C-alpha cells in the first residue's frame, strides 16, 4: 500500500514536472520567437540608423563632388577647396586620378608634415570603380582598407569627379574619397546596450565580404565564416547567400565558440547589394532564466514536499509500527492477563468449591467441616485480595486511581502492619524486628489506604519469601523533607529471603510477573503486588528502590514525602514518673529512654534482667520504687517473663510491669500475667503508645477500653440494613446477630427512606446502606434521609456497605452524606469496629 502511495506520489510529481517543463518550454519558445522578431526589428532599425548615417556622410561627399564637377578645377584647386571645407578632425579626403591611382590627401602623410601625395596603386580598391555610382544615386562606401596616409583602417565614401588637366585643361577622371577611420565608426555604430548587451553588427557587401566587421564575425567573408562553423553544401550555401542578400529575416547559426547565435539580416537600401547583419547569442534571447527559475522552484518545492512527505511517512510508519507493536504487546498482555486471571481465580475457586463439597459430605464431622470452612475462608480471602489487586492495577493503568487524603495516625498504620504480618511471622518462625526512628509527627495527611497497601505489600512479600528461620527487619524513619509542610518517611524492609535474579528485577514491576523459582511457585500471590506498589508509590510522588541478591535476601526502600497533619498530639506529658526500661538491645533502650524523657518521665536503663533486679532493689532501698518497669520479653539470659517473675516474687516491690514484644502476645499472655506482668507493649515505641500505656498503669488515663473480645456493648443494638440482595441480607443479618445486634431490612432505598421516616426516634442505632439498589439507590436514599426535617432521622449514622470499593466510590458515599464505607465482601471485624466507632462518636456527641 505504502509503495503504491509513493509510486502515485512520484507519478503525480513527475507529471507536474513534465507539465511545468513543457509549459515552460512552450513559453520559452514563444518568448524566444518574440525576442528573435524583436531583434530582427532592432536590426532593421539599426539599418535605418546606419543608412541615415551613411547617407549623411555620402551627402557631404556628394556636395563636394558636385561643386568640383560644376566648377572645373585642377587637382590642386579641388584639393584646396576640400581643405577649406570644414572637415572633422579624424576624417580626411583623398583625390585620386583614376589612371595613375595617385593624388592628394587633405591630411599629410604620417611623419611627413608637408607631403600630401597619396597613392592607391598597391591597395586593391580603386582598380575597378564600377561600384561607385553617379553622384546622389547611391551610397558609395568602400570596404575597410588601410589608409595609405596613416595606416589606419578606414572606410571611404566615394564619388567620381572630373578634374581638369593643369596643362591642357582637358577633363581628367578622378575619385573623391571621404575617408573615415573604422575606429571612429565602431565607437558610434553599436547596438543599443540596454536591449542586447552582446549583440554585434556587421555590414557585408554583395559578395559577403565585410565592410564593417563585428568582433564575433570571423574570416574576411561572412559566408566563409558561416561555412567554417556550420555544416553546409554548395546548394545550401547558395540558398543562404540568396536569402541573406535579398531580404530581411533571421536564422540560427553556430559561432566560432560553438554557441548557437541568431543572425538577423536586412538589406541596406540605397546601396549596392549590401546587407546589415545583427548577431546575438541565442541564450541572450531565450529569456529562459525565469522559466528555469519556475521549473527549479517547482522542482525544489516538489522535492521538498516529497522529502517532507517521505520523512513524515517514514515517521508515521515508525510510529505505527511502534503502536502496532504496543497493541500486539497489549493484546498479548491482555491474553496473558486473562490467562493469569483465569488461573489465579480458578485456583482459590477450586479450593472453595472442592472444600464446600467436602464439607457438605462431612456435615457430621465437626472437626473436618470446621477445617474445610477455615480453608474455604482462606481461599475466599485470597480471592478477595486477588480481585482487589486486579481492580487496583486496572485503575492504576487506566489512570483512574485517585488519592483520597485523610488524616491518620502512623502509629495505627504500623500497628496494623505488625498485626497483619504477625500470623505468618509466627508460623514461619521469622526473626522480625520493626524499628521506628525519629518519628516526631504521628498524624499524617495522605491516602492512608494506599500507604497501607504499599507498606503491606512490601512487608507481606518479605515475610512470604523468607524461609522459616530467616529474618525480616523493618525500619520506618522520619526525616526532614525538602517539600514544605511534609516529612520524609523512609520505609525499609530487609529480609533474608530467597532474593531475586537480575533478570526478574528488570521486570518485577510488571503485572503478573513472578520469579520462576520452585520456591516461589509454591507461594500464593497474584503477581500484581509489586506492580501496584510501584504505581502507588509514584502516585504518591515517592520512590521505590530494591536491592536483592539471589539466596541472600532483598531490601526494599520506599521514600515518600507526606504532609504532616495540622493536628498533632504535641502536648503529651506524663506525670513525673520513674521508669526503668530493661532490654538487651541498646537501640531499643535508647529509643525508649529518649521517648520517655520527651514525655517528661525519668527513664533509667537496664541491659539485662539481673541488672534490672539490682537497680529495682537499689531504688527500693533508696526509699522509692520505680513507677513502671518496661521489660523486653526476648532477652538473652534471663528473659522478660522470668525477670518479671523474679521481681514480682519480692512482695515488697509493688511495681507494674509492661512486657515488650514485637509479636502478638496472646501466646504468652497467660504465662506473663502469671509471672506478674501488668500489661503489654509492642515495639516499636510510639510516644503516644508509651504515654497511654504508662498512664493506664499509673491510673492517670481516663480512657478505658473494652476488651477486644467483649462485645457486650453491642448487645441490643438495632440497625436498619438497606440491601436488595437476599443472600447478602442474610449474611450480614446473621453475622451481626452473632454479636447480639438485631436488624431490619429495607429492600431498596425507597423502602429504607420510608422505614426510617416512619420509625420511632431512637429505634435504629444506624443504617447500613447498600448503594446499587432498584427503585432508589443508596446515595439518593442517603440524600433523602439527610434532607429529612426530623433531626433524628437526618442525623442518623449511615454507613455504606457496598461492592463499589473504589476510593471514588467511597468519596461519593461520603459526599452523599454517609458516615463511613465498608466494602463487600464484608469483614465482620471491620463492621464491628465501624459500629463501635459510630457508637462512640454518638455517645461523645
Amino acid at each position, binding site marked *: 500500500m505504502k509503495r503504491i502511495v*509513493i509510486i502515485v506520489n512520484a507519478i503525480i510529481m513527475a507529471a507536474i514536472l513534465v507539465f511545468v517543463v513543457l509549459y515552460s518550454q512552450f513559453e520559452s519558445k514563444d518568448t524566444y520567437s518574440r525576442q528573435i522578431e524583436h531583434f530582427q526589428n532592432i536590426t532593421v532599425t539599426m539599418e535605418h540608423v546606419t543608412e541615415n548615417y551613411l547617407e549623411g556622410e555620402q551627402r557631404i561627399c556628394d556636395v563636394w563632388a558636385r561643386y568640383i564637377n560644376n566648377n572645373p578645377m585642377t587637382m590642386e584647386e579641388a584639393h584646396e577647396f576640400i581643405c577649406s571645407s570644414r572637415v572633422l578632425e579624424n576624417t580626411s579626403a583623398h583625390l585620386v586620378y583614376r589612371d595613375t591611382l595617385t593624388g592628394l590627401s587633405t591630411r599629410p602623410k604620417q611623419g611627413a608634415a608637408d607631403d600630401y601625395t597619396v597613392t592607391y596603386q*598597391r591597395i586593391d580598391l580603386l582598380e575597378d570603380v564600377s561600384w561607385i555610382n553617379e553622384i546622389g544615386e547611391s551610397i558609395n562606401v568602400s570596404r575597410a*582598407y588601410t589608409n595609405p596616409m596613416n595606416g589606419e583602417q578606414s572606410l571611404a565614401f566615394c564619388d567620381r569627379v572630373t578634374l581638369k588637366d593643369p596643362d591642357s585643361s582637358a577633363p581628367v577622371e578622378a575619385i573623391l574619397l571621404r575617408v573615415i577611420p573604422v575606429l571612429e565608426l565602431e565607437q558610434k555604430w553599436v547596438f543599443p546596450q540596454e536591449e542586447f548587451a552582446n549583440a554585434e553588427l556587421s555590414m557585408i557587401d554583395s559578395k559577403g565580404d565585410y565592410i564593417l566587421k563585428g568582433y564575433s564575425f570571423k*574570416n*574576411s567573408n561572412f559566408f566563409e565564416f558561416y561555412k567554417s562553423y556550420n555544416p553546409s553544401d*554548395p546548394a545550401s550555401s547558395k540558398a543562404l547567400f540568396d536569402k541573406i542578400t535579398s531580404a530581411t529575416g533571421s536564422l540560427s547559426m553556430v559561432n566560432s565558440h560553438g554557441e548557437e547565435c541568431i543572425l538577423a539580416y536586412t538589406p541596406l537600401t540605397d546601396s549596392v547589394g549590401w546587407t546589415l547583419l545583427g548577431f546575438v547569442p541565442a541564450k541572450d534571447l531565450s529569456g529562459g532564466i525565469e522559466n528555469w527559475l519556475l521549473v527549479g522552484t517547482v522542482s525544489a518545492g516538489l522535492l521538498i514536499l516529497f522529502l517532507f512527505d517521505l520523512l513524515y511517512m517514514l515517521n508515521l510508519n515508525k510510529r505505527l509500527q511502534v503502536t502496532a507493536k504496543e497493541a500486539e504487546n497489549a493484546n498479548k498482555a491482555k491474553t496473558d492477563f486473562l490467562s493469569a486471571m483465569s488461573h489465579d481465580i480458578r485456583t482459590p475457586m477450586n479450593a472453595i468449591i472442592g472444600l464446600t463439597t467436602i464439607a457438605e459430605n462431612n456435615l457430621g464431622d465437626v472437626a473436618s467441616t470446621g477445617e474445610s470452612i477455615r480453608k474455604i475462608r482462606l481461599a475466599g480471602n485470597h480471592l478477595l485480595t486477588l480481585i482487589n489487586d486486579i481492580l487496583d492495577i486496572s485503575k492504576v493503568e487506566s489512570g483512574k486511581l485517585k488519592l483520597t487524603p485523610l488524616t491518620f495516625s502512623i502509629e495505627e498504620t504500623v500497628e496494623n502492619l505488625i498485626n497483619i504480618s504477625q500470623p505468618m511471622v509466627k508460623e514461619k518462625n521469622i526473626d522480625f524486628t520493626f524499628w521506628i526512628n525519629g518519628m516526631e509527627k504521628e498524624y499524617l495527611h495522605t491516602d492512608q489506604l494506599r500507604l497501607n497497601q504499599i507498606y503491606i505489600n512490601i512487608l507481606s512479600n518479605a515475610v512470604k519469601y523468607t524461609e522459616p528461620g530467616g529474618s525480616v527487619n523493618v525500619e520506618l524513619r522520619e526525616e526532614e523533607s525538602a517539600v514544605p509542610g511534609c516529612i520524609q518517611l523512609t520505609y525499609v524492609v530487609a529480609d533474608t529471603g530467597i532474593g531475586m535474579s537480575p533478570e526478574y528485577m528488570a521486570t518485577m514491576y510488571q503485572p503478573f510477573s513472578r520469579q520462576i523459582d520452585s520456591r516461589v511457585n509454591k507461594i500464593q500471590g497474584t503477581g500484581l503486588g509489586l506492580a501496584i506498589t510501584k504505581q502507588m508509590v509514584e502516585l504518591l510522588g515517592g520512590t521505590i528502590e530494591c536491592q536483592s541478591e539471589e539466596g541472600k535476601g532483598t531490601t526494599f526502600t520506599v521514600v515518600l514525602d507526606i504532609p504532616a497533619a495540622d493536628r498533632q498530639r504535641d502536648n503529651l506529658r506524663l506525670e513525673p514518673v520513674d521508669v526503668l526500661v530493661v532490654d538487651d538491645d541498646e537501640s531499643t533502650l535508647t529509643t525508649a529512654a529518649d521517648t520517655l524523657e520527651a514525655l517528661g518521665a525519668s527513664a533509667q536503663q537496664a541491659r539485662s534482667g539481673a541488672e534490672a533486679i539490682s537497680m529495682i532493689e537499689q531504688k527500693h532501698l533508696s526509699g522509692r520504687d520505680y513507677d513502671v518497669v518496661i521489660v523486653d520479653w526476648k532477652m538473652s539470659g534471663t528473659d522478660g517473663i522470668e525477670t518479671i517473675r523474679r521481681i514480682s516474687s519480692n512482695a515488697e516491690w509493688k511495681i507494674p510491669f509492661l512486657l515488650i514484644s514485637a509479636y502478638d502476645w496472646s501466646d504468652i499472655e497467660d504465662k506473663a500475667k502469671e509471672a506478674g506482668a501488668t500489661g503489654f507493649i509492642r515495639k516499636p515505641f510510639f510516644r503516644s503508645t508509651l504515654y497511654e500505656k504508662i498512664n493506664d498503669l499509673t491510673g492517670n488515663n481516663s480512657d478505658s477500653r473494652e476488651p477486644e473480645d467483649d462485645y457486650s456493648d453491642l448487645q441490643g443494638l438495632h440497625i436498619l440494613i438497606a440491601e436488595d440482595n437476599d443472600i447478602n441480607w442474610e449474611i450480614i443479618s446473621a453475622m451481626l446477630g452473632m454479636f447480639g445486634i438485631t436488624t431490619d431490612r429495607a429492600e431498596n432505598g425507597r423502602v429504607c427512606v420510608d422505614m426510617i421516616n416512619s420509625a420511632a426516634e431512637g429505634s435504629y442505632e444506624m443504617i447500613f446502606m447498600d448503594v446499587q439498589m432498584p427503585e432508589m439507590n443508596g446515595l439518593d436514599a442517603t440524600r433523602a434521609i439527610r434532607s429529612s426535617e426530623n433531626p433524628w432521622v437526618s442525623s442518623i449514622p449511615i454507613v455504606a456497605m457496598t461492592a463499589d470499593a473504589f476510593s471514588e466510590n467511597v468519596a461519593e458515599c461520603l459526599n452523599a452524606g454517609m458516615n463511613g464505607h465498608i466494602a463487600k465482601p464484608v469483614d465482620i471485624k471491620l463492621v464491628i469496629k465501624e459500629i463501635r466507632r459510630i457508637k462512640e462518636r454518638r455517645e461523645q456527641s
Partner: protein
Amino acid sequence: MKKALCILLALLMLLGLTACGSEEKKEEAAVEGYQPALDSATKCKITVAGGYDNFEALETEFERFNAYYPNVELTFTKVDDYNNMIGTVLDGNDAPDIYVNYSWMYGRDQYKSSIDHAENLADPALNLDLSCIRSNIILNTDDGTLPMVPVFSNTYGMLVNNDLFEKEGLSVPTTYQELVEVCKAFREKGYENPLMGFTNAETTSLFTLTIYPFFCGTVAKDEEAVKKLNALDPSAGEYMRPSLEKMAQFLSEGCVNPDACAKIENNYDAVILRFFEGDVPMMTCSGDTVSGTKKRESRSEAFIANPFDYTFVPVPMSDEGAYFLDMPNLQFSVNKDSRNLDMANEFMRFLITSRELNEMAQNKGLMSPTKDLSFNSMYAAFGVIPESRVFSPEEIGLTDDAVIQLRQAVYGVGTGAMTIDEAIAGFGTYTR
C-alpha cells in the same frame, strides 16, 4: 526496498534539477606546459595585423586563449599592401600589438620600422619556449636579438595522389632515379602528365620548386660560394651550373609535359584544382598552396565525385634522396610600443608551444615550425629527412637577391628561353 525506492526517486529528481542547470563549462585547459601568468580577469584588446584576408586558424587560437583570459578581445586585422604599409601602421594611431614580420626585411631601410618596432623575443624574461621550434628557422639578427618568431614554415615539394600510386602499384619516389622511373611507369600506364606544376611565371614555378632545394644542397657548405653569390659576383654564376644541368636533365627525361603545365593559370587555385582532377600523380607546389587544398576540395566537382588521398612530399632531385628546404613562412613580432605589452607577450607565450603551433598549422594547412612534423600526415614525409639534407636559405646565408638570380636562371632554362650558359652568364643581372 521501499526506502531504496524512495531514495532513488529523490536522487532522480535531484538529478533532474541538476540537469535543468546551466551546462556552461569552462573549456578544459588545452595547453601542456602553459600556465597563465597574468590576472585571468584582465580586460583589454589585442590586435594582430597581417596581410592575410583570412586568418581563421589564428582566430581559433584566440578562442583557445580566451579560455584563460575570457575578457581579452583579440582581433586580426588585414593591412592592405602589407609589406609597404606595416611601417606606417606601426607608427600610426592604429598600431597593432602583434604583427606579421618577415626576416627578409632585415637590413632594408624601407622596412626598418617593422624591425625597429619589434620586441626582442629572445629576452629570457619573456619566457617563450623557443626550443619547440626548429632551430634553423629561428633567425636571430647579427646583434643576437630575435625580432620575430616563425609561426608557420614553408617548403617546396609536390602533392602526391596516393590513391593513383596505390592503384598502379607504385611507390612514392624518394630518389631522383625513382622519380624518373615512376614518371616513366605512369606514362606507360597512360598518364599523360605524371608530374605537373605551374610554369606561367617564375614565382613558385615548377622549375624553382624542384631545383631550388637541390641548389641549396650544392652550396650549403661552401661559404665562399655563398659569399660570391650574395655579392652577385658574375663568376658565381657557375655555382648554378649543376642545378641548371639537373633541371635540363630532368626536363629531358620526359617527366613533365610543358604544354599541359602551361595551361595552369596560377600557382594557387589552378594548381590545386588541376591536381584535384585526379589524373595527375604528382603536382609541384609550395607549402602555401598546400594550405589551400582543404578548402578547395568542396569547390572541385571532380574531387567531390572521386575523392582521393593525397600528401605533400619533397621532390627527390638527388640520387641520394630529397632535400628539405626549410623556410619560415609567417613570423610574428610583438610591437614593443604596444599599449597592452604584457598581454601581447602572454599571448605569444601561449602560442609559442608545440601544441598551439601545431594546432594552428593544422588548421591553416601549413607546415608547422615545430620539431615534430609527424602529427600531420600531409607533411610527415618532411619529418623523416635526415638533418644533413635539411637546409634553410637564411641559415645558409643566401640573400634574396642571390636566390632571385637562381630562380630567374632556372625559369629561363626551364622554359627554354635561355641556354644554361646564357643563364649562367646572366647571373647578377636578374631582378624580381
